[in-house]
């Protein structure tokens, strides 16, 4: 799969950007030229040799804060995606096999989670459950998990109804064997697409939460927090939000491109994702995801 993704130029570019961002997350705090919390005499300074991206309203080096803050954003978005993967994909596969009651319940629960304005919920729950980014990410992961639920359920349904699986069941194959042997292979590509998308979504959510100052303690640098502090000084430094905003956008863009590329290279699975997201071919006008989904 990775080789096929890398065979496309857009895939190489997306992977390149993501590797760069991951490297920032790992090495960022080390690479930071100055202490991200140390203040200097010059506040709101412009670009200079000692401060490549200038200083903020307290005289702290912006580049250092950007580098030091990358770890929170990257870790947070990966956490969101992994939680959503586990919470969504496992019930998505099982809902096909565990009887009608569980199927109905899990479908309604997925409908419910989709209907919740997740940023509002993430803000509310994080603030109420204690100001930690991990809690916030777990909650957000649960809230965005319906994507994985639908994608994996749609893929499982197509497999479960196929002739080769039916003949395997007739030949005496157990559910566990069918899932391991046949379902898994079909579920993996659309889940990979969803994973790339969700990392992008997670990035936006982490940035939004840190922008509001939720999930992190004030002096700690984050990309969202950088933007928030820039907001008060736009009259003096109108270009200040550029660097963090571009970083966020480039990362989200790379995630989206990667999702598209993975979808393209895994043909049939991509179609399962398209079907699960409610945009079927126009001969069957689409139904909104909130109304029952793929059933």
């Amino acid at each position, binding site marked *: 799969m990775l080789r096929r993704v890398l065979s496309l130029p857009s895939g190489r570019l997306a992977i390149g950007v993501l590797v760069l961002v991951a490297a920032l997350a790992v090495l960022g705090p080390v690479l930071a030229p100055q202490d991200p919390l140390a203040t200097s005499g010059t506040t709101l300074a412009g670009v200079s040799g000692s401060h490549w991206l200038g200083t903020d309203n307290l005289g702290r080096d912006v580049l250092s804060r950007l580098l030091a803050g990358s770890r929170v954003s990257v870790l947070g978005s990966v956490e969101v995606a992994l939680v959503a993967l586990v919470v969504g994909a496992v019930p998505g596969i099982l809902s096909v096999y565990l009887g009608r009651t569980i199927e109905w319940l899990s479908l*309604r*629960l997925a*409908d*419910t989670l*989709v*209907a*919740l*304005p*997740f*940023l*509002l*919920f*993430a*803000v*509310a*729950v*994080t*603030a*109420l*459950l204690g100001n930690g980014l991990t809690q916030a990410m777990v909650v957000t992961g649960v809230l965005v998990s319906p994507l994985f639920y639908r994608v994996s359920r749609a893929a499982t349904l197509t497999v479960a109804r196929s002739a080769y699986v039916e003949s395997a069941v007739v030949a005496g194959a157990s559910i566990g064997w069918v899932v391991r042997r046949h379902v898994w292979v079909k579920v993996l590509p659309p889940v990979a697409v969803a994973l790339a998308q969700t990392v*992008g979504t997670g990035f*936006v959510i982490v*940035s*939004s939460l840190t*922008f*509001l100052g*939720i999930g992190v303690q004030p002096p700690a640098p984050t990309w*969202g927090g950088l*933007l928030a502090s*820039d*907001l008060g000084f*736009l*009259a003096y430094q*109108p270009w200040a*939000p550029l660097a963090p*905003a571009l970083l*966020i*956008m480039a990362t*989200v*863009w790379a995630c*989206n491109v990667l999702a598209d590329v993975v979808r393209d290279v895994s043909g049939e699975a991509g179609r399962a994702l398209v079907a699960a997201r*409610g*945009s*079927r*071919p*126009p*001969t*069957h*006008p*689409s*139904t*909104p*995801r*909130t*109304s*029952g989904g793929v059933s």
Partner: protein
Amino acid sequence: MTSSTAVARTGLDLRRHRLLVARARHAGAGILVALARAVAIFVPVFVFATFITFALRSLSGLSPARIQLGENATPEAIARVESQWGLDRPFLVQYGHWFGALLHGDLGTSWVNGADISTLIGLGLGVSLSVATLALVIGVTGGFALGTLAALRQGSWADRAVTGFVTIASVMPAFVVGIVLVTVFAVGLEWFPSAGYAPLRTGVGPWLAHITLPALALSLDVVADVARQLRTSLVAAYRENYVVGAIVRGLGRRRVFWRHALRNAIGPPLAVLGLKFPALVGASVVTEWIFGLQGFGRFANDSAQAGDVPAVQGVLVVSIVLVVTFNLLVNLVLARVTPASQRGV
């Protein structure tokens, strides 16, 4: 001769009249069926969502006693306050009581200042709904215009420009758009006020001036998604045999667009609109913070930071009601425009 034509005409009119009545009745029944089906889907969603919302208090372990009595209150005093708020009763009894009051529009009172939460939310709702409605209007008109343009001029520079815009817009979080808009149009060009709100009764001009930038910030995402979906489905619709057939029969371009292509292509963008709405409501938390609006997203953020659980629950319930209502509407429109979308739900 003349009388026989008259008779024939009345006969024809009668038949046409009957046909119209039958068609109207059919459409009415269709709407009713769609409504019943939508309600059957949304009632469990609403109950589930309120249950999750209510469970937040137990999960958070927060108590009004902490807020009212401070950190070093005696266990007896805490117990007294908690029983005043009815928190010593079994969980399901509390939920039943809260849900019953909620159906009457009573969201309880704030832990922080004892004010009625419905009233507090009502104060901010006008701001948020103004912004959200304008954002939807911009999103729908902009999205439809761009999507149609790109689909009808497929492969042209206009199509490429729209695709480029959609790509950029879909990676810009609402708060980044908001900051850019404030920087350019409020701080730089000073065309709009950078913060605050003016109610509609102070005049349409000031009202629009205050909500335009936040609505633009919220709508960009909607514009991008609607445009992308509409382009895809319009392009696909124009490849269908019935559209080719309509063109071959010599029907005008406009008629083919409105009656054949658009009507069949409108399903996916409408469905996307229903899905986007929760995100629109959620993003209001951030945009209201940027634009200094005392709306309902701001209220949610402030209450959550203060640990005022009933207030947060109230906001969440209101947001759920908004989302569910909006999706009901979208479903009804879908049922009217593309009856086939109601099959196989």
